[in-house]
């Protein structure tokens, strides 16, 4: 049985602070129509798309079962549809399993999120916590991540200067990405002097509020050439969920990420990520997470990411050339944004941020405060 799934095409709109002029449906419809145009795929029940995976979040949409109102604009009318309310990296994982199981030849993955419409992103993520022990205290993904930030910065000697370098680099890389949110350039001094949101996390350490939509067409190996002459292959997937209560977790151990990566590496035949993978896209919602996740993926020895940041390891290993989540991708879709960048790089379509000779790339997504859940996907040429 085939062990790989083709990504035939991707379509995205630009990441923006506030897409006030379009509804969710309109954002996604643009991606949908572009995918149809690029691939000529149909919705014939024998030969076309019979199943769609959508990715969205009820609370961010302020609408329960948020996928139900999207079916008609993603071609999911009168056929199969399932929703991922976790990071979109899992939507790709679902799509892979649907195809590898033989149930479907083609799967459309469609994600949307408008963070700008809620009064507060933190109020949304506060609702992820239980109403008995955590929610009443005001816990949300930002302040729970701040627990992790403090512990990790101590463990790996990460300083405010390291974090400033990460943020400035993210903005610089994003300026070469035509789909990235336009944030303007900033200096390391701006980052270091930006006010604390939740110590030690500063305002400029956190990704800005962003709206975005994206779509990908997945296909079984046997039929990929019907839709593209340049498929990118999904060859490995792994995910893992850590404990729910922040206090139950070893916040800097990267437990879930190591498990997720190990499964993806095994499936794709990756022995050493440092040499076997040419490009990495990590889910850095907050600046400190970039070196933390790099340690978890085995890219950097544990506790040594300070040296890695100082010695330009991020450039050497081609990490987050898209600008990363840090520059702005909405929650839930950040893993799909990572996968899209890997896709473009593997196809040689990353324009002036293109790396030569990329054969294998890694896309990563997280869900929850302080990276409770991790998903890892390996993509190959």
């Amino acid at each position, binding site marked *: 049985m085939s062990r790989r799934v083709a990504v035939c095409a991707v379509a995205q709109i630009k990441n923006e602070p506030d897409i006030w002029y379009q509804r969710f449906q309109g954002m996604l419809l643009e991606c949908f129509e572009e995918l149809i145009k690029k691939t000529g795929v149909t919705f014939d029940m024998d030969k076309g798309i019979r199943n769609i995976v959508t990715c969205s979040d009820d609370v961010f949409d*302020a609408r329960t079962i948020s996928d139900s109102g999207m079916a008609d604009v993603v071609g999911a009318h009168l056929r199969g549809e399932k929703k991922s309310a976790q990071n979109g990296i899992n939507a790709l994982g679902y799509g892979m399993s649907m195809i590898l199981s033989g149930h479907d030849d083609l799967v459309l993955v469609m994600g949307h999120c408008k963070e700008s419409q809620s009064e507060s992103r933190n109020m949304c993520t506060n609702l992820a916590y239980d109403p008995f022990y955590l929610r*009443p*205290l*005001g816990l*949300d993904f930002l*302040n729970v991540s*701040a*627990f992790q930030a403090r512990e990790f910065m101590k463990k790996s000697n990460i300083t405010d200067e390291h974090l400033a370098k990460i943020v400035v680099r993210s903005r610089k890389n994003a300026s070469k990405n035509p789909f990235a949110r336009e944030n303007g350039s900033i200096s390391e001094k701006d980052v270091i002097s930006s006010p604390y949101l939740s110590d030690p996390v500063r305002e400029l350490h956190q990704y800005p509020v962003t709206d975005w939509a994206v779509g990908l067409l997945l296909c079984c190996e046997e039929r990929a050439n019907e839709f593209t002459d340049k498929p990118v292959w999904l060859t490995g997937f792994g995910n893992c969920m850590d404990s729910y209560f922040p206090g139950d977790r070893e916040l800097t151990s990267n437990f879930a990420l190591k498990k997720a990566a190990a499964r993806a590496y095994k499936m794709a035949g990756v022995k050493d990520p440092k040499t076997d993978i040419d490009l990495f896209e990590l889910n850095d919602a907050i600046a400190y997470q970039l070196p933390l996740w790099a340690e978890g993926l085995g890219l950097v020895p544990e506790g040594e990411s300070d040296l890695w940041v100082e010695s330009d390891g991020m450039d050497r290993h081609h990490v987050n050339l898209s600008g990363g989540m840090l520059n702005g991708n909405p929650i839930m879709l950040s893993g799909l944004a990572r996968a899209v960048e890997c896709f473009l790089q593997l196809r040689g379509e990353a324009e002036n941020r293109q790396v030569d000779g990329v054969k294998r790339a890694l896309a990563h997504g997280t869900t929850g405060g302080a990276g409770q859940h991790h998903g890892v996907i390996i993509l190959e040429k």
Partner: protein
Amino acid sequence: MNIEKDNQFVIEGKLALPYQYFSGRTGSRFLIRLRDDKKINGLKCNACNKVFVPPRSTCEICGETIQDNWVEVKDTGTVTGFTVVRYSEPHQPVKAPYILALIKLDGADTPFAHIVQGIAIENMKVGLKVKAKFAEKTTSTIMDINCFMPAG
């Protein structure tokens, strides 16, 4: 008609659904002990030798049912991690800035989240010994512990 940003039509909404969350047999017992006796209880997995606070009926490590293994933990403990929340938003119980901490209660193995007061922000540190200050008026929630204060 051309819709520009200043005349875009928006519908104001608010997710507000009156709702009753059943706290479960285990959660109810924890909250009742807290409300009536001002005692903090955990559940112990004897196989893993681990005391969980907040309590849960099943050990997540070995899967053993531990719902009857109640142990009382102390109302004192040690801060294992903290942050100073500087932003003010409606979901917060107190006005910012406030200190949110992970506190390992004496007798428990899993640090427990709560608010620390009674210490200047600049003096806050990991390793601080703290003691629970119980609320004067019960709400039958975790806020029956008003906050933790530096001990001694």
